[in-house]
């Protein structure tokens, strides 16, 4: 009896995000229909598809930014709307970096940290150092290059995942084209971070136009090809 | 009561008749506009269907 309860618990604990029969229409076009996804701990869901096949739309539906035309998204078996637990457990890096131009790199990070009720200057430096942009700390975000800004966005992601061990951990990362504009070294860094996150029991949903076969993420990944779910025009 | 007296409206002919005429015209315009639009939409959809049929026959 106890054993059964325990397995049941781990099972529900394993499964983080579920999408049932998702359908999305943009303008006149039906982008995709009948999408079922499950994201478990330690799993990287890789959404692939041609340009305009709805990768970003699906990602935004999965993180609650936009709503599907039909179908439901569940976070730990609960609906996504007004789900405080989901807000606390998810980190998102989109096309837009979410950085304030007027603030310096470190100030951008500090704001994120303060929102979580933490005050730890050392952690800020660590995150910047881990993405090898410590030298940018006091530059305003406006002065950073595109690649540096992307790295800063990942530093913020890392910060919120690390620091939040006190409150609740950012167990799910949602990444939209994470490697755009980032050089080879940066890409390796970010892949390492992702692998680390996955082996710690986190989960990732990402869009990326290339195959992940060659990367360290290959063994965690499950692929979802949107072209197989294409809607009718 | 004769007709000219009726149309005279006790000296308020302009006010009364302009209001009634305007209201009737507005209501009729709404209906005419909706019917006209309906015909145009149906025509456009019919053309779209024909285009799709031609496309299917060609391919």
């Amino acid at each position, binding site marked *: 009896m106890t054993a059964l309860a325990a397995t049941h618990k781990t099972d529900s604990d394993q499964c983080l995000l579920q999408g049932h029969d998702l359908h999305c229409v943009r303008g006149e076009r039906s982008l995709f229909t009948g999408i079922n996804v499950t994201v478990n701990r330690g799993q990287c869901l890789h959404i692939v598809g041609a340009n305009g096949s709805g990768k970003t739309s699906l990602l935004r539906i999965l*993180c609650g*930014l936009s709503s599907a035309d039909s179908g439901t998204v569940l976070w730990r078996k609960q609906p996504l709307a007004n789900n405080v637990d989901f807000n606390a457990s998810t980190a*998102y890096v989109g096309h837009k970096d979410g*950085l304030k131009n007027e*603030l310096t790199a470190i100030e951008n990070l500090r704001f994120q940290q303060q*929102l979580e009720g933490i005050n730890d200057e050392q952690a800020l430096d660590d995150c910047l150092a881990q993405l090898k942009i410590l030298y940018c700390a006091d530059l305003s975000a406006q002065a950073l290059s595109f690649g540096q800004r992307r790295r800063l966005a990942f530093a913020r992601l890392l910060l919120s995942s690390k620091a939040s061990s006190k409150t609740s951990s950012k167990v799910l990362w949602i990444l939209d084209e994470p490697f755009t504009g980032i050089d080879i070294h940066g890409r390796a860094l970010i892949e390492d971070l992702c692998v680390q996150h996955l082996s710690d029991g986190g989960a990732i949903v990402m869009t990326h136009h290339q195959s992940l076969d060659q990367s360290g993420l290959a063994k965690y990944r499950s692929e979802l090809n949107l072209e197989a779910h294409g809607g009718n025009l | 009561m004769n007709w000219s007296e009726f149309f005279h409206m006790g000296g308020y002919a302009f006010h009364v008749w302009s209001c009634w005429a305007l209201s009737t015209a507005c209501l009729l315009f709404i209906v005419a506009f909706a019917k006209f639009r309906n015909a145009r939409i149906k025509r456009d959809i019919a053309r779209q269907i024909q285009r799709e049929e031609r496309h299917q026959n060609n391919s």
Partner: protein
Amino acid sequence: MNTLLLYFKREWQLLFRNTGALIQPLVFFIIIALLFPFSLPAEITLLQKIGGGIIWVAAVLASLLSLENMFQSDYQDGTLEQAIIHQRSLEMAMLGKVLAHWSATGLFLTVFSPLLCLTFNIPSEQIWVLFFGLLLGTPSLTLIGAVGAAITVTLRRGGVLIAIIILPLYIPVLIFGAGMLSQSAQGLEITSQLYTLAAIFVLAITLAPFAIASALRATIN
């Protein structure tokens, strides 16, 4: 509450880095108000009579001018998306932002309004009436305007649309704010108008955050 304060503080931090945007509404307010004497017959009594109304209209226009930028930059750089995903209470976060915005526009205007009153030769008792009227009225203006700004945030040129949808909603505040002045000029009681302005403010501050948050969630997708 913590979220509200943090957003309030960050908004001020951003405003200090961008002093141009900080003083623009104030300068606009003063210029609009000072434009009226040029377009009116040169009578001191006339300006005295309508000066309060002019200042109110200028305040409404100045607060309208600054609305477009309220959420636009946050939307463009993606911080708004981050807030929608991460914030437990988007309502509180946005309220902090809007209040910071008010303190940078409405509060400034209110503080400077007595100066304009002097140029219009408005008697000193009435200056106080105008001052407290603006102090109570401008937060409502900013809160109502923020809802319009939230609805139009994704539009590239939302400025005119904000004016069209928001100006009719400003009318009650304008009526009671400016009406208070003409009441007091006739030596009548103005407490009921003050209470009404306060009631509108309470209504605005309780409902606007929810309207803002749901408008942002609905239009950003």
